[in-house]
């Protein structure tokens, strides 16, 4: 009986979703604001990557909210895990030679790749969030390969706070110079060069450091407690 009802509900949901999606044309720009971003985005913000110009410039305030959500999640996880901690110093099995050597070889390359992704966020696909996640996956690799290594909590918290602080301070500087929060007050330069797009690369570097240290400290917290 329950199985019949769930199959029936599944069919209703499938038909409903496919009927409502069938009316939407696939991949056609429909909204005026979307067309404006595509046509004028590079001219207005100086960022060659339109996604970045939307995420950091047009919708920069949303991004600040997103970063705050991640920050609160990391703090909450740390708070929950620190109350259940009973510090049982477990004996750490050392990794095999292949894993150890592979991790030591790959870790700097992954760090450089993540840094490249967020420094070039305004030119090529990617940005602060993606670069930060790649850097955090590099730290994950270190936890798998070199198990006795730990990140320095003080340094990671400092980097995290500094990243958030730089984001907010740049937003407030926009308020000072032009009258609204996150105004792009720096010169935009020529598009498609590294030093272009005003505040966008600075904000993305700050976000990259912040997200990277946050996700790395989440992994560190979890591994410490498990």
């Amino acid at each position: 009986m329950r199985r019949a009802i769930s199959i029936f509900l599944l069919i209703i949901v499938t038909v409903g979703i496919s009927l409502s999606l069938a009316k939407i044309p696939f991949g056609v720009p429909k909204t005026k604001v979307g067309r404006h971003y595509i046509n004028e985005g590079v001219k207005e913000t100086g960022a060659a990557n339109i996604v970045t110009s939307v995420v950091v410039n047009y919708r920069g305030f949303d991004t600040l909210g997103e970063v705050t959500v991640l920050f609160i999640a990391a703090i909450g996880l740390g708070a929950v895990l620190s109350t259940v901690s009973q510090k049982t110093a477990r004996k750490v099995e050392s990794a095999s030679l292949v894993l150890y050597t592979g991790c030591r070889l790959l870790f700097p390359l992954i760090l450089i790749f993540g840094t490249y992704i967020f420094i070039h966020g305004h030119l090529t696909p990617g940005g602060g969030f993606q670069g930060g996640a790649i850097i955090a996956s590099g730290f994950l690799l270190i936890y798998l390969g070199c198990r006795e290594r730990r990140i320095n909590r003080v340094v990671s918290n400092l980097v995290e706070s500094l990243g958030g602080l730089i984001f907010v301070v740049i937003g407030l500087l926009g308020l000072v110079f032009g009258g609204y929060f996150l105004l792009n007050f720096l010169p935009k330069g020529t598009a498609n060069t590294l030093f272009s797009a005003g505040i966008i690369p600075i904000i993305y570097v700050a976000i990259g450091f912040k997200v990277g240290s946050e996700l790395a400290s989440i992994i560190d917290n979890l591994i410490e407690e498990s």
Partner: protein
Amino acid sequence: MIVVVSFLVVLMLVAAIAASVFRDLIGAVIASALVSLAAAILFYFLQAPDVAMAEAAIGAALTAAIFIIALRRTKRYEE
């Protein structure tokens, strides 16, 4: 092109079903990471490389790792 995309869609469906029916939870986590990986490649084909990068790094790598770390504190097999 269409062959690759349909293969990826079928792979995603199979992996999603596998993730929900596997009794071995490590296997289920890896199947769900496979869903994210196929989704990332599909995002790339749909000309959204930004989203593809985030999906591959967070969905396939970090989420799976966090689930596996959490599984160490609980049981590996579902009853």
